[in-house]
């Protein structure tokens, strides 16, 4: 039970509250869940009911068949992250939640952009931009190209911004998946 109680003065004024923190930054939650029917619904339902907005969501298998990983990003400026994670922890099928530290995290997203190219010159310009971003042209015809790129969401945002003026026919993004750097488990 630890050391015996001491009677030092403790002023109530010294006590500080653990407020529901709004951190003001994007958070990546890596959530390990039991691979069972309805688990994703429980998580998205919880977010809907508590008024939390999911920015991106990616679900996939892990090395263990019985476990899936959900990578979910949300805005810490709008949501008290500790309340979000505590509510998630109450779900019986949720095994583990990590609120990943940006500096210690590798986060990647896959995006595909279909860009309108009216002539050879525009096409060349698009291809040149893609090279800088290490994006691959995966489909091409007279009037458009399809570009595939992976990276952090900032990089993808930047590429999107550059491609948009050419005429972005459509795009699809997977949402980020993430893993921690170094030897330790995410």
């Amino acid at each position: 039970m630890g050391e015996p109680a001491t009677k030092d003065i403790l002023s109530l004024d010294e006590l500080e509250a653990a407020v529901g923190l709004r951190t003001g930054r994007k958070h990546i939650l890596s959530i390990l869940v039991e691979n069972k029917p309805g688990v994703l619904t429980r998580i998205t339902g919880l977010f809907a009911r508590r008024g939390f907005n999911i920015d991106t969501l990616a679900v996939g298998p892990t090395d263990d068949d019985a476990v899936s990983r959900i990578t979910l990003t949300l805005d810490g400026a709008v949501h008290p992250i500790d309340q979000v994670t505590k509510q998630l922890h109450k779900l019986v099928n949720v095994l583990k939640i990590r609120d990943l530290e940006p500096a210690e995290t590798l986060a990647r997203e896959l995006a595909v952009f279909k860009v309108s190219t009216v002539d050879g010159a525009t096409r060349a310009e698009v291809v040149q931009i893609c090279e800088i971003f290490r994006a691959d042209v995966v489909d091409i015809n007279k009037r458009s190209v399809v570009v595939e790129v992976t990276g952090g969401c900032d990089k993808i945002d930047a590429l999107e911004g550059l491609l948009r003026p050419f005429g972005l026919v459509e795009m699809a993004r997977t949402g980020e998946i993430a893993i921690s750097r170094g030897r330790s488990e995410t």
Partner: protein
Amino acid sequence: MRAVDALMECLKAEGVDVVFGLPGGANLPTYDAFYDAGIRNILVRHEAGGGHAAEGYAKATGKVGVSLGTSGPGATNLVTPICDAMMDSVPVVFITGQVQTHLLGTDGFQEADTIGITMPIVKHSFMIQHPLELPRTIHEAFHVARSGRPGPVVVDIPSDLSRADIAYEPVQDVHLPGYQPTTTGNQKQIRLAAKALTNARRPVIYAGGGVVAANASPQLVELATVDRLPVTCTVMGLGAFPAPHQQWLGMLGMHGTRTANYAMDEADLIIAIGARFDDRITGKLSEFAPRAKFIHIDIDPAEISKNVPAHIPIVGDAANILPRLTAEYRALDPDPARLEEWWSRIRTWQERHPLRYEDSDDSEIKPQYMIKALHEATGGDAIVTSDVGQHQMWAAQYYDFPAPRRWINSGGLGTMGFGLPAAMGAKVGCPDQTVVCIAGDGSVQMNMQELATCSQEGIAIKVFIMNNHYLGMVRQWQELFWDRRYSSVDMGQWPDFVKVADAYGATGIRLTDKGTLVDDMREALQTPGPVLVDVRVTPEENVYPMISPGQAARDMVG
């Protein structure tokens, strides 16, 4: 054996001696198994009645209640009790029938997505996918329902799977890797809390239903009486601290005592135990207890700092934490003299602002007097259930509860029609105790059909209807906040409750005279079998005092 026979073995292994439910197509196999399982199954008249009965049973006994319904409408009728059990943390396992697996997703007859519909209102739920899963799942359901912060668990069983033949092996343990509630409080935090208490000059203990759920009332009393910490309880916590008591401030919140609310308002340290800072407690959140620091003890970490930031959070079981906090606090040898000033302020409020009402000077029965009379007639010793509304608040104010699990009401969801079936469940669980339901004339009609169940099963509950022929609380709000525009609140003179009682095989009594009320109530209580008492009270009486919606506690009116 059939999966449903294994289900019976599991229920028996969990100590289940009674279930409340209604059979239908999809749970025919389950009811067939009940036929010779040796478990009492009480046939309710509506699944909602069965669900609330299971809640009443659980709240009165502290055991897990069990409620059954068939697929589709049987399950949707259980939605209200499930949600009610969620809001008030009541351990109930709901077992629903489901259509056969080959019909799932085809909009089959009586098919409803029970798991989907109930997902936001359960602690957890299970859909049986394979008959072999059934035994383990049942034990997991009971484990989740009763442990940690208790709550409702739904088990949905497709009828073909429930008939399947399985090799049954008793299950010895449950394995839920994602479910490990924290029960042991952090010692450093407990020590810090003891120190803060020692240094507080205006402390208040604010205890909720969690103290009752944790069976931690004796430990609460012990902490409070190390020196003289003032105690208030939420509507869910009433009885957790014995009333009356020198240190008892009365209930707090919207219709709490002025003393309790003023004490919260001026406190420098509030010790919240198993309470969740509901809006009916805090009033205007930004002006709630503005001078206070908060110790928050709760088994659910998500309650900490949800509404009100905690300065010293302690996650765990109150029955584990309170004795350790008491020991630490006692070891610090707190100086009781520091509370003198605080107590003299509290005594001033108590003298100046007792609960009060204007009694009639003729035979008219004031609703507040009705509760006092019932307290007298029962010797203050009954298990009391209630519906929701004015009668509930008056019961909470005027019936002093000397012990926990004596006051059973729907606090969080505020479910009309809760009281009568809850009384039925409580009486089944505690057959030797007097079980009384204080009902509203509006509320009682929502589950009155269970009187038939009571007659058939010989469940001798005594229902006292506070009959003002209004939806009284709504009428009060219309009077106070909507310019007396009484819209859809007048229930008229229907039904004739004495005739209703008669039709259901219960005894019906009408009481209209204040002069003989206590004696008449005694007689009703002594009448064998279920009794329905129609007590005619002042139609337009308001519940006071009151924190008006969106206002601060210090601005109480009435």
